[in-house]
C-alpha cells in the first residue's frame, strides 16, 4: 500500500502531478482551486524541478501549455469555470494542432461570476467541445479525492496516447474536501524526443511545424476527418464507467462526479424501501458510456439522472437510450448540492406514485 494521507482534492491533484513527473504547470488563481498552484509553488520545483509559473491570465496559461506541449513536455493547468471559459480558445488550438495536455476544471456555479460553490454546469462546455470548431476533449469525472489524484497520471497517458487535451471535470466540493488518499509512487521526469515536437530542427531531417492553420478546404477537411477518427477510436477504447445492482434493476439512478455518490446513497435508501434500483456512474464523460445505457434501457422501467445543473448529461443519456425507456431529470443549481432524500422523493414522485 502506498502512502496514505488526508488531503484536499486540490492538494491530492497537485501532489499526484509532482509524482507523475509532470514537467510544467501554468495557472492563474481562482477559487475554489487555488490550492493547486499554491501547493505546487511550495513543493514541486524543489522536489522534481517541475516548472510552476503563475501566468498573467488563464489565456496566458493555456498558451504557455501550447508552447510547452509543442516541445513534447507534460504540461498542465487547473482552473475553475470562468477561467476555463478563457482557456477555450487555446484548447481549440491545442486540439487542432494535436498536442497533449491536461486541464482540470474545478467547476463552480455559474453563469457569469456566479458562486464559488460546487456545480456541474460546465458539462456541455467540457464534453461538447467548448471552443470553436469540431473537436473533443477526453473528459474524466472523478467522484472522490482518490480519483482526483489517480486521474492525473491516467489523464497524461491518454493525452499522449491520442495527442489530445484531456480534461478532469470535478467540482468545488471535490477540490475543497479532504478524504483519505493513497498516493502513487514518485516517477522521474523524463524527456522523450517525439518526432512531432519542436525542439530544434534535426540535422538530418525536416523542420517540425505545429499549426492549426490549413487554408485549403480539402486539407482542413482531411485534418477534421483525422480528428473525428481519433474521437471514434476513443469511443471504442476509452469508455469507463462504474455500475451497481444492474442485475435485478427496474430503475437506474445515474449521475457523475460528486453527485454520483449522493445518487448511490439514494439508491441504497430506495432499496431499503424495496425499490429495485441500479446505479451507473459515467467516469469518462467523453467518450460517453452509451452502450451500457442502451443495454439497460431494454429492461428497466426508467432512468433518473441527477446533476448539479439544469440537465446536461441527461441529453447524452437520452441519446444513448434512444427512446427505449423513460428518462427523468432531477437537478440543483447555483452551488446547491442535492441530498439523497430529495433524490429518492423525486424518484417516488415521478416513477412510483405515477404507476
Amino acid at each position: 500500500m502506498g502512502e496514505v494521507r488526508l488531503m484536499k482534492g486540490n492538494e491530492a491533484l497537485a501532489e499526484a502531478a509532482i509524482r507523475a513527473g509532470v514537467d510544467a504547470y501554468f495557472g492563474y488563481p481562482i477559487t475554489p482551486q487555488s490550492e493547486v498552484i499554491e501547493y505546487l509553488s511550495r513543493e514541486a520545483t524543489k522536489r522534481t524541478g517541475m516548472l510552476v509559473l503563475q501566468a498573467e491570465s488563464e489565456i496566458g496559461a493555456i498558451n504557455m501549455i501550447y508552447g510547452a506541449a509543442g516541445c513534447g513536455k507534460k504540461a498542465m493547468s487547473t482552473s475553475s469555470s470562468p477561467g476555463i471559459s478563457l482557456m477555450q480558445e487555446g484548447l481549440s488550438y491545442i486540439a487542432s494542432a494535436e498536442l497533449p495536455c491536461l486541464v482540470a476544471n474545478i467547476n463552480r456555479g455559474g453563469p457569469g461570476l456566479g458562486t464559488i460553490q460546487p456545480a456541474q454546469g460546465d458539462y456541455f462546455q467540457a464534453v461538447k467541445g467548448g471552443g470553436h470548431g469540431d473537436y473533443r476533449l477526453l473528459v474524466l469525472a472523478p467522484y472522490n479525492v482518490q480519483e482526483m489524484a489517480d486521474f492525473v497520471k491516467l489523464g497524461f497517458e491518454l493525452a499522449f496516447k491520442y495527442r489530445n487535451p484531456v480534461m478532469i471535470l470535478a467540482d468545488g466540493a471535490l477540490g475543497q474536501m479532504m478524504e483519505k488518499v493513497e498516493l502513487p509512487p514518485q516517477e522521474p521526469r523524463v524527456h522523450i524526443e517525439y518526432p512531432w515536437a519542436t525542439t530544434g530542427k534535426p540535422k538530418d531531417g525536416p523542420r517540425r511545424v505545429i499549426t492549426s492553420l490549413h487554408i485549403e478546404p480539402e486539407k482542413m477537411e482531411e485534418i477534421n476527418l483525422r480528428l473525428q477518427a481519433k474521437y471514434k477510436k476513443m469511443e471504442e477504447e476509452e469508455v469507463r464507467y462504474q455500475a451497481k445492482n444492474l442485475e435485478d434493476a427496474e430503475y437506474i439512478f445515474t449521475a457523475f462526479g460528486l453527485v454520483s455518490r449522493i445518487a448511490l446513497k439514494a439508491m441504497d435508501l430506495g432499496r431499503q424501501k424495496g425499490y429495485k434500483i441500479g446505479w451507473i456512474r459515467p467516469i469518462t464523460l467523453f467518450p460517453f458510456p452509451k452502450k451500457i445505457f442502451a443495454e439497460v434501457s431494454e429492461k428497466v422501467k426508467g432512468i433518473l439522472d441527477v446533476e448539479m445543473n439544469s440537465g446536461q448529461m441527461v441529453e447524452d443519456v437520452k441519446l444513448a437510450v434512444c427512446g427505449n425507456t423513460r428518462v427523468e431529470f432531477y437537478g440543483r443549481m447555483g452551488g446547491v448540492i442535492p441530498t439523497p432524500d430529495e433524490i429518492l422523493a423525486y424518484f417516488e414522485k415521478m416513477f412510483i406514485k405515477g404507476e
Partner: protein
Amino acid sequence: MTHESVFSGFGGQGVLTMGMILGYAAIFEGKEVTWMPSYGPEMRGGTANCITIVSDEMISSPIISKFDTVVALNQPSIDKFEKAVKPGGNFIYDTTTTLRHPTRQDINIYNLPAGDITVELKNTKVLNMVMLGAFLKITNVVKIESIWKGLEAMLPERYHKLIPLNQEAFMRGYNTVTAYKPVLV
C-alpha cells in the same frame, strides 16, 4: 455507523485542525472520512467551520446542513448552528465568552469553560484541543489513542514537543464537559 459533525469558531482558533485530527484518527481506524471547510467570502469576517463526517461506509455528500453534533467555539457559531443540530443530536459550546446560551429543548446541550481552562494551561492556542476532548467524550466516534496518532500526523515534526500539552488540554476538555439544561423562560 455515520457521524456528521461541524466545528465552528473564529479563524485562528484552530477549528479546521479539529476536523483534520478527527479525520486522521478515523483513517487510522480504517473508517471513511470527509472534511469540508467553509471557503471563499464566507471565511471573511472571521468565522470558519469544517464539516467532518466519519463513517464505516462510503460517504455520499461532504456538504450537509443538519448535524449529529455541533461544536461551537464562539458566540456567532452558537447563533448560527444551534438550529442545525438534528433533533436528538448534540450541541457542545464554550461558556467563557458566551452571552446567549442555546435554548432548544429537543437536543442534548453540553458546555464547558474551555477558554478558562486554556488560561490555566497558560496557552490559549489549545482551545481547539479542549473542545475536541469534549466532543470525543460526548460522541465516542473514535478511540482516544487514535486522536493521539492523528495529532502526531497533523503536527509538523518540529512541534511534536507540544504534543503533551495538547494531550493535557484534550483530557481536560474530555473530563470537564457537562450537560446543560436550558432554562425555560
